[in-house]
């Protein structure tokens, strides 16, 4: 899967509109994921996953910052995400199915907060973006 020039424009613009809310959206996406897909909580037994949890807020910001970095390097996602790719492969070892679940919850969150901007074309580009990030993060698994 390749991100076209149009995809890259859509992704950068959409992310730009999120502005300072990225961390908040990251946390919301995680909260949605933990609630809708309880099996994802198995990777966070040490977390308080209740609504408003400081740990989820902190982790949401972490995830959002990594995505913001990725948006700034759409021409070289493997390079930009290399350290995170190593971390997921050798330390975290989150089963690959879960990346689709979080990606879906990120889309749900963005559609929820930016209905006018979340056109089908932008939705498609963002879906490709999250899929590309997921592929990079699982690329060193084996």
């Amino acid at each position: 899967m390749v991100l076209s020039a149009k995809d890259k424009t859509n992704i950068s613009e959409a992310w730009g509109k999120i502005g300072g809310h990225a961390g908040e959206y990251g946390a919301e996406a995680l909260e949605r994921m933990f609630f809708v897909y309880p099996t994802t909580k198995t990777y966070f037994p040490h977390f308080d996953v209740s609504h408003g949890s400081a740990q989820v807020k902190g982790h949401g910001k972490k995830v959002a910052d990594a995505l913001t970095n990725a948006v700034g390097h759409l021409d070289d996602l493997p390079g930009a995400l290399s350290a995170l790719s190593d971390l997921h492969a050798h330390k975290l070892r989150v089963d690959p199915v879960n990346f689709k679940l979080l990606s879906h919850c990120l889309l749900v969150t963005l559609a929820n907060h930016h209905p006018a901007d979340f056109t089908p074309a932008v939705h498609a580009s963002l879906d490709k973006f999250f899929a590309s990030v997921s592929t990079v993060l699982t690329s060193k698994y084996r």
Partner: protein
Amino acid sequence: MVHLTDAEKALVSGLWGKVDVDEIGGESLSSLLVVYPWTQRFFEHFGDLSSASAVMNNAQVKAHGKKVIHSFADGLKHLDNLKGTFSSLSELHCDKLHVDPENFRLLGNMIIIALSHHLGKEFTPCAQAAFQKVVAGVANALAHKYH
């Protein structure tokens, strides 16, 4: 609940009776750890898992494979009540072991491959289809109590 036809039930019990169950267990678990190395995350205390041969020869892996396959075999005797049969194991895997149920699906497929490996021609598409229903049922039963 899994719905197997009488023919499928006969296939499953007939073929299961022909295999060395402990070997299937060891091979399935070893394969899981080798083919999907991230599954080793649950077994860091098992010692040397550094290569395929280390995994295949690891005594703790074999012992655990035996434990798991005997539990699976128990399921084969209760195909009409898998959720009940695996209820407390489901709670254990969620609350204490924190195992993503995706791993049950992966292991189920490793059991299928081990059976195919051992049974050869007899492991026909029909036989596979029957066993796929069983492993899916067991995986769902083990995931049933997750919250």
